[in-house]
């Protein structure tokens, strides 16, 4: 037995200096921000609450998708290239996932992975609405391309005017601008044409637009969710969806390696009690165990309530800024569902590797409307939009144990900050029932399940569950994100938590912009090389 001298590693009572920046929270945004700061030559410390940071997800059932995500569609392409994530192990098992939509009448349409070519699906091309569908898709994609930059992440230079949306559009032409402003308030029903053309195309678009948002297809602003959704370029193709090998955990790991490569000092199991404010600016952070780290820059990647109200404290915040906290209550959320199913004489058994697909159940328009109403009333809806993938479909048969693994996201569900067993059971039953549209008789073969709700993700990151609920409408998110990012007025504080992101999905764009702003700040205020 070796007798190593015990070194007291607790930081209680110490004051640590010589640090240029502290990043709080090991989310994708936090990791990306830390990597950027490290690359810029700033001595950076990343404080994560969980014992392992960017840890591999070794639960065989969740297959690396337990972090709330199983597909990549909003991952910031600039982060991928700036940090060289492909070199650090990011790999896409499929980068233009075809989507097969299932409908209530048990019909199915398989659509090209490139949304611009979606209308080429024979079922769509043959329908009466093919032309209208094509022009709608083209217009939406064009709008999404114009708005990609402003919709990716907020500005950190203090833009807070509620009309900022206009300013961001200023570079687009007059006509484009008018079109965007008209579409910004429109519901998906307005755009598709109210109750006129019932049919699978409408159900398909409604489901895509309403998926993981708080805007029902008939609600104003819902169309813009589709614009946001198709503005992503995770895999180098606008609007396409990619499946990262190893799931979201693989992206987190690549980001962690990027941070490590940039000499970021990553510290796990560290809780921050408060951010020290001196003369209107950040002076350091105080850890829960008592120690202090002095630093002029803090990037906060946990939720906004924690960042501002708890760690900074209301007495240091501008009065109008606090209005951002009060005006939104979460109503809807999504649930992540994993299942292990017995491989029976199943249609996926003999599929080749390319069969990795995104499967989506698109409830009928009326059912979807009912679902949103039910969720608003706090009930688990009967019909849910379900997006599912079978992660091991990409692998050859002998790699697995013959079982099928399924990862699904279901929406809309009522947001519940403290879900009990009864609620979980109800949610699980509803998801399984809806999965039957995608894979008939699947429910009979399920052996083991995992259900991940917003509070479960929150526990993992140490953030507030509300931050993981379905975000408000895009324009509200726009205002909220820009407010949190640019208007707190505390010098040296940069926020890139979930509220700074627009739309669902793993993005890291806010982390990139926050880090860029912090680096510019460090150059002006000294401390950066």
């Amino acid at each position, binding site marked *: 037995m070796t007798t190593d001298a015990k070194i007291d590693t607790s930081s209680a009572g110490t004051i640590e200096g010589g640090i240029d920046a502290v990043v709080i929270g090991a989310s994708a945004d936090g990791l990306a921000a830390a990597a950027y700061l490290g690359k810029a030559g700033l001595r950076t410390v990343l404080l994560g609450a969980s014992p392992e940071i960017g840890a591999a997800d070794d639960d065989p059932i969740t297959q690396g998708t337990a972090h709330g995500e199983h597909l990549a569609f909003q991952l910031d392409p600039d982060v991928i290239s700036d940090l060289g994530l492909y070199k650090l192990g990011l790999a896409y098992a499929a980068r233009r996932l075809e989507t097969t939509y299932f409908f209530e009448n048990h019909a199915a349409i398989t659509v090209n992975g490139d949304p611009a070519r979606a209308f080429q699906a024979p079922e769509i091309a043959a329908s009466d609405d093919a032309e209208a569908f094509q022009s709608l898709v083209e217009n939406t994609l064009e709008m999404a391309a114009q708005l990609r930059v402003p919709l990716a992440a907020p500005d950190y230079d*203090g833009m807070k005017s509620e009309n900022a949306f206009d300013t961001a559009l200023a570079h687009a032409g007059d006509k484009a601008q008018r079109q965007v402003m008209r579409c910004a308030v429109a519901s998906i029903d307005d755009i598709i044409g109210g109750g006129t053309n019932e049919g699978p195309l409408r159900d398909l678009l409604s489901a895509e637009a309403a998926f993981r948002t708080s805007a029902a297809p008939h609600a104003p602003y819902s169309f813009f969710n589709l614009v946001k959704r198709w503005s992503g370029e995770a895999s180098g193709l606008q609007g396409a969806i990619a499946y990262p090998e190893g799931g979201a955990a693989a992206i987190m790991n690549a980001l962690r390696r990027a941070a490590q490569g940039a000499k970021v000092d990553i510290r796990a199991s560290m809780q921050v009690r408060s951010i020290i404010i001196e003369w*209107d600016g950040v002076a350091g952070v105080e850890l829960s165990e008592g120690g202090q780290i002095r630093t002029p820059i803090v990037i906060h990647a946990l939720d906004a309530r924690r960042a501002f*109200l708890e760690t900074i404290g*209301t007495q240091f915040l501008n*009065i109008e800024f606090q209005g951002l*906290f009060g005006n939104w209550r979460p109503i809807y959320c999504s649930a992540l569902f994993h299942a292990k199913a017995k491989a029976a004489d199943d249609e996926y058994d003999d599929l080749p590797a390319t069969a990795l697909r995104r499967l989506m159940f698109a409830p009928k328009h009326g059912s979807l409307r009912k679902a949103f109403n039910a969720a608003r009333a706090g009930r688990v809806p009967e019909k849910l939009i379900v997006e599912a993938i079978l992660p091991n479909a990409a692998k050859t048969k002998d790699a697995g144990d013959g079982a099928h693994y399924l990862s699904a996201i279901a929406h809309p569900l009522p947001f519940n900050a403290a879900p009990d067993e009864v609620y979980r059971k109800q949610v699980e039953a509803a998801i399984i029932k809806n999965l039957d549209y995608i894979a008939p008789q699947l429910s009979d073969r399920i052996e083991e399940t995992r259900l991940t709700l917003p509070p479960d993700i929150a526990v993992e990151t140490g953030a507030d569950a509300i931050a993981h609920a379905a975000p408000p409408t895009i324009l509200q998110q726009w205002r909220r994100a820009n407010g949190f990012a640019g*208007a707190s007025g505390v010098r040296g504080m940069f926020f890139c938590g979930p509220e700074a992101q627009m739309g669902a999905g793993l993005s890291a764009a806010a982390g990139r912009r926050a880090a860029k702003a912090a680096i510019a700040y460090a150059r002006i205020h000294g401390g950066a090389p």
Partner: protein
Amino acid sequence: MIFSAEDFVTESPKATALYAASASYCEANIWTSVNGWSAARLYTSIEQEYAAAHSAAIITDLGAITRYAIRGDDAAMMATRVATAPAKKLEPGESARGLILSDEGAVIDLAEVSRLSGDLLLLTTPRPHARRMRLAARGLDVSFDDITAQVSALGVFGPKAREAAAKAGIDLSGESVAASGHVRGVETAARTTEFGALPGVEMVFPREEALTVWERLMRFDGMTPAGLDTLEVLRIESGAPRPGADFVSAENARPGQARTPAELGLPHLAPLDRGWFNGRRALRQTAPAPSRTLVTLMLDTEEATAGVAVFAAGKGAGKAVGRITSCAFSPDAKRMIAFADIAINASGKPLEIAMAPPGEGRIAAKSLETAEGALAADFRALQKEATESAR
């Protein structure tokens, strides 16, 4: 305390607690409304009321001014967040003036904070600020109430104001200390105040007892009720800008309309080297150098209106450097006195105004010395001294 600009759209203004009392004296019967409350514009004539203000005392209904009672351990912290007045340093009975600033450091309103007792503060503002107060109370151990509708408030101004108050039974021996006392059994909170160069007393007491205190004060020889029109003359003479007239609240400002304390000539109400207040951060860090300035002018004419253009003197038909924001006829000087919002580079230079129709010539506008202007000048001199000695 200054009234905010009149609102011309209120159809049936609410009656202030002192409405019955003031209506019985309002011979001219000219009324207006401020913040939805009724307010007399004229009781007899401006000359008569103005003369009383300078020789004896005037009494005026201050019921249209908003008052918040802030209670709790963090009352002073909340008051400092809302207004720039140094609430934490106030002893019971003391009051201080300040400004309400936006997050960007632009002026929203004027404010006065009084500490009535250990954990009870009174915040007096020309306009109501319900939302701002709610946001400012977030996270603090306080409760606050808008008590405007529950109290009567009146002001007595003039050289004999304090004498009149003393005769009515309010002992205000200390210079700055507020007193709570009883006037014929009615509990009152009174404090000394100034309206420009005029000394005065402001009193707040229960709504039900409005007439008792008013009548008691009216017994004083020479006490004259005065309306908003007379107060307007006194206000411009004293150099106090009026919210809604001389500046636009930053909450309603269109681009280019928001003004910093320095631009309003009130830098002494928001000193940046003191404790934290909302907007200080922006003023210290990001606020650009002042580009406009609010000046008081004496116009060589007997008529002028708000909105008239101000020019740099002797520049021919140059571009206007600014506009008159409010003006009134001073019975003493027999001239118009005015506030004007002008470009900063035109301040200190000779100015003139042009009356319509064009071609009728220009009228000279001389700078008018005011009490508020003197305070600002003293403050600037002190700041300059401090920076020089720091070097």
